[in-house]
């Protein structure tokens, strides 16, 4: 599993496009918001938590289809299925690699982007922590969507349609955490829910993905 995790990291770095693309997309989404709603700083500060979370979520969505598609195309997935690593282990390794190359950079990039949106200073720590805790759920849920659509040519749009509804609870708990911090009330309850959601995803998603991959192999 470690070998697979490290190889996926190496591939993401070599092919480029991995984190670079997601980060650029995140920047553009955040940049578009003032174009769309005006540059009023108090308004921006109010909507910043939601924009940052939605932007990170959409940026994360971009690279999902590569999780399994590339390996399926060159036959690697078939060989992996006959290897000592169980398919659930394959999913864990790949979801982790996806998080390190996408979720983690997005979490870090959210801080300077928050400044651009005039996010109140009290909320930065909560923004970072909520994204840090919440983005693994996005990767694990996303890997499930990728496993479902791996056999479908040009399944990118379908992948979004399947995965986005599953992202709703993560988005709500994540954004509410930051909103509460901005409002000055207690963000801990929603952060705990978010952490619970991530743990749940980490536990059940690899098995669901393995089932989906198995159905797609035959």
């Amino acid at each position, binding site marked *: 599993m470690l070998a697979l995790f490290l190889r996926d990291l190496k591939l993401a770095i070599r092919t480029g496009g991995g984190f670079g693309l997601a980060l650029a997309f995140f920047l553009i989404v955040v940049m578009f918001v003032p174009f769309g709603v005006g540059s009023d700083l108090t308004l921006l500060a109010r909507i910043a938590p939601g924009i940052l979370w939605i932007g990170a979520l959409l940026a994360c969505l971009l690279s999902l289809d590569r999780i399994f598609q590339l390996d399926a195309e060159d036959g690697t997935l078939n060989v992996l299925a006959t290897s000592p690593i169980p398919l659930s282990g394959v999913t864990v390794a790949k979801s982790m690699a996806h998080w390190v190359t996408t979720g983690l950079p997005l979490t870090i990039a959210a801080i300077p982007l928050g400044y651009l949106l005039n996010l109140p200073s009290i909320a930065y720590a909560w923004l970072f922590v909520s994204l840090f805790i919440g983005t693994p759920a996005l990767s694990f849920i996303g890997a499930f969507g990728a496993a479902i659509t791996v056999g479908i040519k040009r399944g990118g749009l379908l992948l979004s349609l399947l995965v986005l*509804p599953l992202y709703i609870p993560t988005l709500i708990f994540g954004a509410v955490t930051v909103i509460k911090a901005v409002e000055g009330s207690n963000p801990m309850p929603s952060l705990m*829910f978010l952490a619970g959601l991530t743990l749940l995803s980490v536990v059940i998603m690899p098995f669901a993905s393995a089932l989906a991959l198995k159905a797609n192999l035959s």
Partner: protein
Amino acid sequence: MSLWEYANPVKFMGLSSRLIPTLSVLTILCLVTGIVWGFFGTPDDYKQGSTVKIIFLHVPSALMAINAWMMMLVASLVWLIRRHHVSALAAKAAAPIGITMTLIALGTGAIWGKPMWGTYWAWDPRLTSFMILFVFYLGYMALWSAIEDSDTAADLTSILCMIGSVFALLSRYAVNFWNQGLHQGASLSLDKEQHVDDTFYYPLLFCIAGFVLLFVLLVLIRTRTEIRLRRAAALAARNV
């Protein structure tokens, strides 16, 4: 003799063709009784006027929107565990009915909401949950239509239905949490049970029974169609 025998396509076709006429009559009886009684046999509400009568469409359709998903979940589990083909096709057949029920619930809700709250739409937790349910149905149906091999499609949609159920439930509670978080003490409550008086209660029961029967009837008819489509596809494959 076990219940599972009816998972065989031939048995299912035989049984359903015998059930459908009876079911149709019962459905029409219940719906007509419920709706006529509800619309013309009940007094106007002292507060809501005659608009309250949309309850006879709104509540049953909302119930069935959720129950259809539950039925799909059970049918999906039966397919995953026991590999009964009819079960998978029944889940497939139920999805468009479920999404229609969701739309009716949202539509009647909007029509009711305008005179009551002065708006067609509010981001109330219940309304939002139904919107979310609608998207889950969309994803499920899109996946069915995207995969060519029928057994693979049944497998994948069943897994999606399972995981979707977990996340739809989570969304339901997350939405409650979110709404309280944003609008302290939101005043829009759809809690009707407290208001419902006996004069409304009995016709409502008829309407609910009618919608349940209608759902079962439509699922049977649509499953029969799906079975025929599968037979046609299997025949075409054999003759190649």
